[in-house]
């Protein structure tokens, strides 16, 4: 009797212990390298965001403080510096950046209304005006595989979706919520849009038609101050929490999977991380704007590392 009781207790300990371990499982990612442009370009100055063009495999960093974009070769894992682009001095504090299949750059700049389009092939510049509102300063940009452009307008609590011909397709917002200030967004291969709201710590999932299909997360419980969101090729959702100095990972249903990162200045540690981007080969780029650092993490199974 006593023996069976001991066995039962042991089994319960193993069961609950294993679920605890599973919940806190080691993150299957590891620090890979820091992106360095010190010698070639004098280093970063408060980089705001980055984008990896899957067509030409170029990594573009918006080097906000130095009014320029920096290009890196992303075909190899050494991320060789390629060039910088400042539109002959016309670019001003670039914030969001994406590039389409034809090489056109879409850039949002501090204090400028609309989205500036730089065509480096024709050396021309255009502005995608955002209709209806004169005082309109968009921030973050995203582009899906079909070339649809997503423009986040925090001030107007919405995301605008433009087709590749830059015709407005839809506006995405949370109806009835007057204080939903989206702070970042990500788009998956099915066109689902994941929008993050920092102050409520909520992630809203919209289908490609803009219908709200899921929301999860709570400030103070899941997050402290989430600032950026990205999706990996498997559909997992990565959220950067600036004040936790961590990246938290959820599955596509919003169930917590694992987390990585700890506060610090050492490589592999995170110091007020501000932005995250994940490319198709699952390389995770994390910007730490306040210390001008971009760190790259990657799955532990990635052989080239």
């Amino acid at each position, binding site marked *: 009797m006593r023996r069976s009781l001991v066995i039962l207790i042991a089994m319960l300990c193993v069961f609950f212990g294993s679920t605890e371990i599973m919940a806190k499982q080691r993150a299957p990612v590891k620090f890979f390298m820091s992106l360095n442009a*010190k010698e070639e370009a004098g*280093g970063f100055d*408060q980089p*705001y965001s980055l984008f990896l063009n899957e067509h030409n495999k170029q990594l573009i960093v918006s080097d*906000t*403080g130095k009014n320029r974009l920096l290009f890196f070769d992303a075909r190899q894992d050494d991320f060789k510096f390629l060039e910088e682009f400042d539109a002959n001095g016309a670019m*001003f*504090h670039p914030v969001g950046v994406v590039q389409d299949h034809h090489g056109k750059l879409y850039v949002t700049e*501090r*204090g400028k209304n609309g989205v500036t389009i730089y065509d480096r092939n024709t050396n021309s510049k255009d502005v995608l005006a955002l209709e209806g509102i*004169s*005082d309109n*300063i*968009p*921030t973050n940009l995203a582009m899906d595989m079909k070339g649809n452009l997503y423009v986040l*307008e*925090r*001030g*107007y609590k919405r995301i605008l979706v433009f087709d590749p011909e830059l015709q407005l397709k839809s506006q995405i917002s949370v109806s009835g919520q007057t204080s939903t*200030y989206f702070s970042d967004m990500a788009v998956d291969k099915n066109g689902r849009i994941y929008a993050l709201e920092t*102050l409520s710590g909520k992630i809203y999932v919209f289908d490609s038609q803009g219908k709200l299909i899921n929301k999860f997360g709570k*400030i*103070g419980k899941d997050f*402290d*101050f989430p600032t950026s969101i990205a999706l990996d090729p498997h559909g997992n959702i990565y959220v950067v929490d600036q*004040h936790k100095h961590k990246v938290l990972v959820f599955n596509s249903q919003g169930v917590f999977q694992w987390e990585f990162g700890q506060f610090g*200045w*050492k490589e592999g540690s995170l*110091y*007020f991380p501000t932005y995250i981007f994940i490319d198709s080969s699952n390389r995770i780029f994390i910007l730490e*704007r*306040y*210390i*001008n*650092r971009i760190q790259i993490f990657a799955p532990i199974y990635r052989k080239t590392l």
Partner: protein
Amino acid sequence: MLKGTANYAMNSSGFSIQDSVFRKIVIFLPLFILVLGGQIYAQTQLKARMPELCYRCHKELKKEFSKVYVHVPVKKGQCNICHNPHTSNQAFLIKDEINHLCMNCHKGTRNDFRKESIHTAFQRGKCTDCHNPHSTNYRYLLTKAQNTLCLDCHEAMKDQFRQAYLIPPFKEGRCLSCHHAHASYESNQLVKSPNQLCQGCHDIRCQIGGVSLSFALKESPCTTCHSGHSSDSKGVFNAYAHSAFLEGNCEQCHNPISAGKKITTLLAGKELCFSCHEEKRQIVNNINIHMGDVESACILCHNPHASSRKDLIRKHDKELCLNCHQDTERRQALMENRLKSIRCSPVKGRKCLKCHKPPHYGGPLYLKAGEDIGCGDCHKAQHTITHPIGEEAIDPRTGHAMNCGTCHSIHTAKHKFMLYYNRDRELCIQCHRR
């Protein structure tokens, strides 16, 4: 059945005791208990009834406890409700830490801690800072008259009594007419919303060009423009006011106002502000811009009419900033618990704008640019003779010039002197590895 124990036989009337030994025990045991209990009672019997016994020694208290308002246990003579007559770990032989002791009976008071606006004295002080636990001449067992008591801490209010126009409850020192002494769901522990409070005594008198603004202001907090206490201006306006507002020049910002119609502005959002304050337009060009992409970015922090705070800042930083940045408040509270004592007055007083000036400082985290990030305003001598900061001291971990924030964590420190690392063991070797 066990031998020597009671033998119970069940019959229709119940149990009957059949064992003779057991019967004797049943008869004599109560007698024995009675005799023994009586002896013990005789030995421990108090020499007098409770309050009189205490007053035999504490003679001065009897008179002291006979003031107008008397705490119920004192009135009933139940000194031992609060005091242990023999020993205690607390001063005055009270049975528990004073706040716990009070809230053991005044359980409803605990709910006040859940409210949004909590009086600092209530949150951090002792009940006996304001209340006399025995007897006083003031309602709620206050130690002093309410206005005197409040002004002991709120000394700055004394100046407001010298102003030309005073609101009657303030003039009469009736602080509790408008404020709850512990906590409330309204800011500044008001007992009701400001407009309910003011309109409880008088109607809305605001008008422009003969048009009463009551239709537009019914739901607006009166304290947006008016002081709840006093003012040198006739309308009892707050100390700091927009010049156009003071001059009654509403057309400078608003379209013509007519009764019953929504009041609108000439331009939308921050463009209206920039139309006069053109020099501030560059703020939206800062790299780090707090909510600069929001149309009403200016009035998030500034009141366009009047305010009791310099630069027309809407509210105390605690409400202005920490209502949204709640995680910072949580972290600070944790830090305060961990470090026990923090001397940094902006942190203690939640004066966020002392160091952060969003969006006017465009640097990271809206801190003042340079090496002291604002700390040097108070700590003038710091780092003149200790570790260098600034361009001559580059942090090898980041390649940046060191500033106070390199070693000190202002909101989440874990170690003495608000340091990230223990200065005896870890701090220096973060950089000085050899």
